[in-house]
């Protein structure tokens, strides 16, 4: 094992942070972290059973005692910034507080100890939860029916696009194109492409909004659908949504709504009422399930009744007070995932929605919008607002003012770390050069927003007075600026 507690000069800790060698560097031959206990059946003779298929050497996993494992992961964990440590204003990601009761719910043995192939009779609780969650999502969104199985937002997009394809196919022509505004998230075109659609990008208008005439122009009978994010990735409500939907519908196309920004609409707008035919939800955004450092999330999809026949399998049905599962359908696109999707994530979202209820969801939306507008008000002037329209739940600045001093968005982002904040989303949406996309969410109080705005303003001052300080940031976290180019070039992807 290499010396874990200190670097050569004897000063490895900053606070209580440690340089942590990898598991492999800490491994020692013969050390054990588990202990199996005695077998009560005879040990299988591997050679006799499997012959040459027996692995000649045990897999080269590290060898550690329980205490080593505990320390390693505990030490690594504290090298992370997390929502539980502070403000995390990643635009489009809706990093709201993750309620603790949801974790407890997901860990209840009555949920965790159920198997997907148990008889439906013996999992009525699970089925009721799923059935009711579908129902609640439908009520929130105004869609007619919902599937819960997609594992994330982009998986929901794929599911939705597959349904759109199936719908058109059932009408005789799957069609060949999908329209996507240039402000859309990258998953939109990527998902459409998997369904063999050609992606046609629609340029946003000068106000950052969808331009109905651009859609009109692109629209024809080969267009299967348009994918719209509303409010869009600038945080602005697409005021021409209905007009665009009408244009698309008039040529037999469908409207896909990317629901990543549903946190701006709950209790105010139901997408199903304004022309959306298909939409996905990000339970890990709108409904507060934790992001886990990248996942798991869940990306349910809601559709209007014309598309319901195509929903993926299985479907849960209610018959009086009894739930059953149907595994077959002639029209369904089929299975999109094994079992019942990311079930434990569904449990968390169900818990969240039940706790808040209709009023709570609406209040959440209101406070999310209040917070975003407050930040926008406090920072405009100091930072450039490329699109100066009213916003809902997030706002997008850029680095135009700071460019004058040679400072870029990335520098500002890194410098925020020195102030103890996670940076906003940067360089997205692509239509804004040097975008700084701030989504505070509703779970932050005014004083935290003030701290953040104070930091942003202080950094703006630093850009003028001492731009190098900003350009060489971060100075205080565990690591200073990390060389991403080298990573991509050298491709050291495992130990």
């Amino acid at each position: 094992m290499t010396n874990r507690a200190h670097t050569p000069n004897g000063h490895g800790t900053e606070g209580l942070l440690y340089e942590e060698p990898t598991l492999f560097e800490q491994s020692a031959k013969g050390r054990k972290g588990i202990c199996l206990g005695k077998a009560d059946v005879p040990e299988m003779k591997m050679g006799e059973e499997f012959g040459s298929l027996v692995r000649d050497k045990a897999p080269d996993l590290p060898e550690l005692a329980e205490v080593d494992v505990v320390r390693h992961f505990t030490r690594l964990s504290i090298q992370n910034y997390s929502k539980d440590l502070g403000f995390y204003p990643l635009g489009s990601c809706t990093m709201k507080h993750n309620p603790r009761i949801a974790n407890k719910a997901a860990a209840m043995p009555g949920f965790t100890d159920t198997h997907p192939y148990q008889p439906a009779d013996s999992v009525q609780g699970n089925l009721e939860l799923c059935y009711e969650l579908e129902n609640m999502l439908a009520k929130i969104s105004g869609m007619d029916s919902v599937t819960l199985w997609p594992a994330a937002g982009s998986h929901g997009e794929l599911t939705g696009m597959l349904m759109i394809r199936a719908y058109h196919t059932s009408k005789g022509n799957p069609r060949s194109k999908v329209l996507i505004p240039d402000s859309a998230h990258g998953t939109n075109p990527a998902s459409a492409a998997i369904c063999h659609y050609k992606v046609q990008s629609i340029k946003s208008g000068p106000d950052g909004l969808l331009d109905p005439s651009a859609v009109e122009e692109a629209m024809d009978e080969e267009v299967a659908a348009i994918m719209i994010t509303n409010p869009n990735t600038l945080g602005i409500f697409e005021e021409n949504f209905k007009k665009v939907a009408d244009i698309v519908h008039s040529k037999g196309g469908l409207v896909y709504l990317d629901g990543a920004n549903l946190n701006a609409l709950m209790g105010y707008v139901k997408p199903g009422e304004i022309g959306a035919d298909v939409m996905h939800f990000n339970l890990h955004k709108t409904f507060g399930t934790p992001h886990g450092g990248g996942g798991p999330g869940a990306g349910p999809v809601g559709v209007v009744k014309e598309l319901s026949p195509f929903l993926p399998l299985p479907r849960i049905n209610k018959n009086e007070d009894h739930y059953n599962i149907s595994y077959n359908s002639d029209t369904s696109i089929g299975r999109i995932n094994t079992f019942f999707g990311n079930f434990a994530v569904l449990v968390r979202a169900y818990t969240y929605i039940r706790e808040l209820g209709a009023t709570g969801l609406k209040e959440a939306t209101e406070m999310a919008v209040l917070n975003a507008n407050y930040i926008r008000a406090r920072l405009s002037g100091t930072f450039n607002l490329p699109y100066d329209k009213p916003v809902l739940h997030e706002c997008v600045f850029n680095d135009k003012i700071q460019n004058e001093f040679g400072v870029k968005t990335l520098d500002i982002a890194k410098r925020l770390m020195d102030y103890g904040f996670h940076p906003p989303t940067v360089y997205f949406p692509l239509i804004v050069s040097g975008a700084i996309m701030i989504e505070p969410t509703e779970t932050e109080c005014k004083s935290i927003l003030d701290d953040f705005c104070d930091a942003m303003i202080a950094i703006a001052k630093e850009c003028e007075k001492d731009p190098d300080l900003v350009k060489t940031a971060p100075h205080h976290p565990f690591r200073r600026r990390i060389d991403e180019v080298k990573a991509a070039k050298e491709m050291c992807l495992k130990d």
Partner: protein
Amino acid sequence: MRYLPHTEDEIQQMLQTIGATDVESLFKSIPTEFRSKSNIDIGDGCSELELTEHLEELTLRNSCSSDFASFLGAGAYRHYIPAVVSELASRSEFVTPYTPYQPEISQGTLQVLFEYQSMIARLFGMDVSNASHYSGATACADAALMARRIGKKRHKIILPDNLHPEYREVLATTLGVDGLTVIPSKDGCLDKSKIMKHLGEDVAAVIVQYPNFFGIVEDMSEIATSTHNAGALLISVTPEPLSLGILNHPGQWDADIAVGEGLSFGLPVSFGGPTLGIFTTKNKFVRQMPGRICGKTVDVDGKGSYTLTLSTREQHIRRERATSNICSNQALCATTAAIYLASLGKQGIRELSLRNASNAAYAKRVLASVNGVTLPFNSATFNEFVIKTNKPAADVIQALENELILGGVDLGRWFSNMNDHILVCCTELNSKKEIDSYASILTEILS
């Protein structure tokens, strides 16, 4: 609302700064005709205590594996989760961050993902692993798409029917049935000659499951060679990667892409999810691989550091030309798997793997000796095996359930000619006593 920290005073101050009169007015950019006329019709919220009582009531409508002796597997395997795994994986520093886009303040998650990739690559004997996919099935579908990309004009994907039926369904949903050729198995094994017959220039990949859906451990060397000779890729699928503790790894027989399901690695079965899609490949294909990857680099001070890398493959940069549409993945499941695998270690994974195999071997022996039971296949099996009963599987399973035994999965569900076949699984959780009692109750049922 305890999740909303705003006090009335603060709201007023904030509105003043914004220059708005009330919160409602902040929504005026939404045209009034878009505003929903009705409230959300889901009723009122409730307190944490009420919620807890409600959730407990729901769980009481489930029967749990603790109430039954369970022999269910078929892609979702029950394993003992050491206390250390759940405790560490639930640290909020792992649970509450987003994807580590900002590496300077995300070294914890990044190093864990790097270690996850390393352990998975070693276990599978492959060059490189990504940082997770949704599930074994979606990884399998993305592997097929990747093979098509690599194969350029090659479009056909060959797969056996002893690939997990739900994986086959996901493949069909994702890729469409055109170009998917399903080859029926023979005696539970690959029908190699039939597969070889299909191996033409249009074949992008052959998919095999190892151990296969019937629990059988097949030697894939021959099929691998034929596949490669035909210029196609071999995709290996392993829903129970614990098997690799004692079995040869897919790298050994030169798989090009090896995917798997990591649910066995420290995750509760939890009605089947969240799952953990394992995705590994050869170095030469890394730029075609879907999903996030963590790599090692340095910071400006030269300190060893980790960061997400090769992101030019991904949707946020490459958009419709990306190697996949995946964005959020199953990072926390990968973290859990890393903790689990580090706890098992080199010896532990071998011992545990062998224990699973030994329990299953014992069960196979005692169940096979029950009157009315036969073993339809006679190949070596790992943790699962198929029994054929002299009564319909559905009835047998129901009768077992009445005796608090979840006896296995009725294969008639997916194979119309297997209505009297049950897939039986054992893990380290199935004691001899349980197995013996299964056998004796089965004896009664079948007599």
